[in-house]
């Protein structure tokens, strides 16, 4: 079979279920999966018998994402007729997202609407009647996307984007005028204005991306990791937050081994809490695994609550402070928060982030301060972006940040850069053709001999 680009998408509906299935199809999906998924029983995934489930670790570099089931389907005995992989992940949107991102980075492309079925049709796995039905489905799906886009067209933000699109087309028209009618000696480009337009486009896009992340976070609920030394009181706090005993608690350090996740609704916001193994150097193999699990969880968490047992001696508290600082510097993307536990028996520390599991109010205080930043966002002011739109914005951002200095860039290269930006931009606002640019040239200037 000729080579077909590998595609990836989630197969189960968006939202939370116990399990989420991610599908891959195309050339090289086994090889890609081999780099990311390691069966527990050893050996390469590509060598396990087809159509059997194997359990294993899904890893991104040195961090472990999940412990999913995976199935291999060898072409042509698959839904699409191509090599396929199915991953049955834990139904956490964050895990699913990270998994998709991971495969995108490894060279897969996000599937178009209906693309799995289309490939099935192409490979003779579906008859024309079924395919016709599918075509309608694609139409419908795209119409929904279109509706969404049009709704957004009404909105302030997309107005700003089509404004940018117009501005860039106009700049490009000036550049093309200068290039294609070189003899006429037009040099009308205002480099300062161009530079400031690109700057403000970049900052708008960055705002939008931040807002996207917040909106996305709100929809799925932020993930909060309880981290700290053994015996810091993590499991006790975890139980106190949930309102029932979910984790084992004991005065024995090293009680929690695996991590435990639960979610609560608190004042209208979904919060996911994770209890983890206390971190320390250990000879115990199982515990060591738990410890590495805990640190691996850090990058996946939106907030990390680092618990410090306030009943410990003063000198230990100082070392804990340092440990906190070094961790929070190492994982700078996550928000770290220092939380003093066992306030009923420890030195009293006067911050909102000091708790005792015997003091319900102190726990609520902590939760309130956590959700404060979310409730200031009104949900309806956040823009809903599809994953595709999000990718386009990222593409524009990366092109924009690669243009260093417009005045030093030769004109024809500047034109190439602007066209590179217009490409994804036009997918957000409507296509720009060569003819559009020429139109802008001819309508604005008297050219030609």
């Amino acid at each position, binding site marked *: 079979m000729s080579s077909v680009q590998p595609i990836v998408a989630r197969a189960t509906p968006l939202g939370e279920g116990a399990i989420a299935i991610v599908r891959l199809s195309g050339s090289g999906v086994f090889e890609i999966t081999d780099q990311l998924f390691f069966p527990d029983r050893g050996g390469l995934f590509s060598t396990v018998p087809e159509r059997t489930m194997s359990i294993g670790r899904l890893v991104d570099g040195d961090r472990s994402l999940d412990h999913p089931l995976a199935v291999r389907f060898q072409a042509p005995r698959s839904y699409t007729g191509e090599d396929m992989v199915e991953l049955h992940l834990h139904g956490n949107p964050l895990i699913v997202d990270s998994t998709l991102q991971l495969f995108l980075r490894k060279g897969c492309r996000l599937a*178009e*609407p*209906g*693309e799995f079925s*289309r490939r099935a*049709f*192409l490979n003779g796995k579906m008859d024309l009647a079924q*395919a*016709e039905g*599918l*075509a*309608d489905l*694609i*139409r419908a*799906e*795209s*119409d929904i996307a279109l509706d969404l886009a049009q709704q957004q067209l009404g909105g302030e933000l997309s107005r700003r984007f089509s404004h940018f699109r117009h501005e860039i087309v106009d700049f490009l028209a000036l550049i*093309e005028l200068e*290039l*294609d*009618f*070189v*003899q*006429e000696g037009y040099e009308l480009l205002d480099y300062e204005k161009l530079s400031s337009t690109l700057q403000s486009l970049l900052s708008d896009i960055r705002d939008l991306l931040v807002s996207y992340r917040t909106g996305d976070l709100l929809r799925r609920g932020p993930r909060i990791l309880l981290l700290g030394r053994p015996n810091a009181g993590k499991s006790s706090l975890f139980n106190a937050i949930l309102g029932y005993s979910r984790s084992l608690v004991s005065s024995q350090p090293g009680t929690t081994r695996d991590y435990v996740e639960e979610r609560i609704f608190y004042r209208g916001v979904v919060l996911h809490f994770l209890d983890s193994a206390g971190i320390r150097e250990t000879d115990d193999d199982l515990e060591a695994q738990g410890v590495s699990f805990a640190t691996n969880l850090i990058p996946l968490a939106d907030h990390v609550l680092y618990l410090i047992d306030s009943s410990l001696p003063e000198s230990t508290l100082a070392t804990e402070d340092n440990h906190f600082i070094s961790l929070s510097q190492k994982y700078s993307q996550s928000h770290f928060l220092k939380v003093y536990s066992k306030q009923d028996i420890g030195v009293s520390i006067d911050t909102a982030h000091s708790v005792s599991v015997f003091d319900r109010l102190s726990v609520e205080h902590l939760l309130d301060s956590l959700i404060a930043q979310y409730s200031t966002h009104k949900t309806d002011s956040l823009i809903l972006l599809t994953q595709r739109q999000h990718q386009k914005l990222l593409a524009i951002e990366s092109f924009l940040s690669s243009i260093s200095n417009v005045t030093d860039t*030769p*004109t*024809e*290269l500047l*034109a*190439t850069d602007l*066209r*590179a930006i217009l490409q994804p931009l036009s997918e957000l606002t409507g*296509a720009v*053709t*060569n*003819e559009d*640019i*020429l139109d802008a040239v*001819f309508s604005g200037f*008297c*050219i*030609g*001999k």
Partner: protein
Amino acid sequence: MVRRQYDIIVIGGGHAGIEAASASARMGCLTALITLELETIGRLSCNPAIGGMAKGQLVCEIDAMGGEMAKIADISGIQFKTLGTKKGPAMWSPRSQNDKDLYPFYAQQRLREIQGLDLIEASVEDILIDKGVIKGVRLEKGDFLSCRAVILCAGTFLCGRMYTGEDQTVGGRIEERSAEYLSGSLRNVGFETARLKTGTPPRIHRDSINYSSCEKDFGDENPQPFSRSSKEVQNQIICYTTWTNTQTHQILEQGFDRSPMFTGRISGSGPRYCPSIEDKVFRFADKSGHMLFLEPEGLNTDSVYVNGFSTSLPEDIQAMGLKSIPGLEECKIIRKGYAVEYDYFPPHQLLPSLESRRVGGLFMAGQINGTSGYEEAAAQGLMAGINAVMSFRGENPIILDRSQAYIGVLLDDLSVLSTTEPYRMFTSRAEYRLLLRRDNADIRLTELGGNLGLVEPRQVGRVREKMKLVREGELLLRKLNAQYIGGDGTVWADKAWTLLKRSGVQLTSLVFSDGENLPDSILNDHEVLEQLEIASLYEGYIDRQVREVNQFKEQEEKLIPSEIDYRKIQSLSSEGREKLTKFRPRSLGQASRISGVSRSDLSILMLYIK
């Protein structure tokens, strides 16, 4: 000589016809070139100038493929200039002023030397088609010549009408007749035609110009030929520039009510990029002056071309307007300006090979496809000639794509997007223009020209050798350390390749470290040095374009079956369905360039591609 039977017949001896006939005969087909007047073969209808932005690149591509235009332009050229030298190498575009008598002279001389090519003076009245297959052509006196393929290159001559003020005359070019029946007979068998117009400025007597009021415009100090096979070219004339003024504009406005453009007597659309002077005055009323170029039309002629003053205003207004311009106060008009309106065949009726979708073996090239310009015409003529031979041999057509050549952009735009105004090439039409340069036209196309038998093996070998040296040179430059001393005495030291990226740094100004240097074979070859400098300057950008090209090719290779019936695909959007039915794209890539065909239409279309 006139025979009764040919392999291929070319109709029209303009720039398209010349290339078509030459390619067809040199590829071994017995060919006839039939044209209204043998003496006018290769005539430059408008400005005697070849090349310019994007057009110059086209000429170099024609040369790399083994076409004629570059060589004729070089020997008949009287002033040479490379435009765009203030920009980067992708913009460098050669242009020449040519002697209006020498150009056709050499064109005809070259054609006469080609074996298996007969030149015939006649008007073709009808193309005989039987059940969608070409049988031959019928001449005005009823003679019938049989052939297997026809290349129609009739230019501005199909039902040509010329206008000056309120005068209208029949003809395709001044003092030449028109072909009155051919487009009608093709309409009868289902071809769609429409009208376009173009215009030309007055010519004035060179001795009637007061040059002291004008600015001089010289050719390049170091004039460069178009063709890789031409030796030296020389500048032999000086051009001049002057400006119109508000008084000129007022005079011209007085003639508007007698202008065929404003009275609506011409309905065809004209080129927006080459507007008539009345158009400029009307549309850009706030501009107080327009630049004019005074270009001698040759060495042995009194005629000077007033570039920028294309007009179909009444002759008295033309004269009065000119006289208000500095330097032209006493000017004498030798030939008035006029507009010509003609039939063209909207080119979506063609395949990208320039073969008609409707009639196998019928090819069309040049102005009749809605383009304007000698270079655009020649490029099409060459490809139509090549592909008529391929079709004669029963082989697959040669199709250059948008990433290979401006020629590819031209044919793709025509056959996929069609055109409703005269189409001219611009560099901005080429998405991969950093790759489509004049300096590498030979690298891109000579091998192909050689395979077709149009380029001499010696030249093919030379290009291969050059490419080898470029590869070697690049490896060395990436390895060797060098220094560059800037104008202010600053010394830059780095890998030679990196130093070359600084703008203005030339390879020959680098000082290599440790006594190393490039081999003489590279140092002595200025074409190789140029390739190396450009490759390092554009590195990164070129990589990006190459990546884009690969994605682009993936889409181009997804072919749409020609028998597909879009009306039966219910789920297509109605606009998408209509456009797809009209333009019948060959590939998914082409479909994606048609406006009105949406992303989801493309997804749906993919279902039907196997």
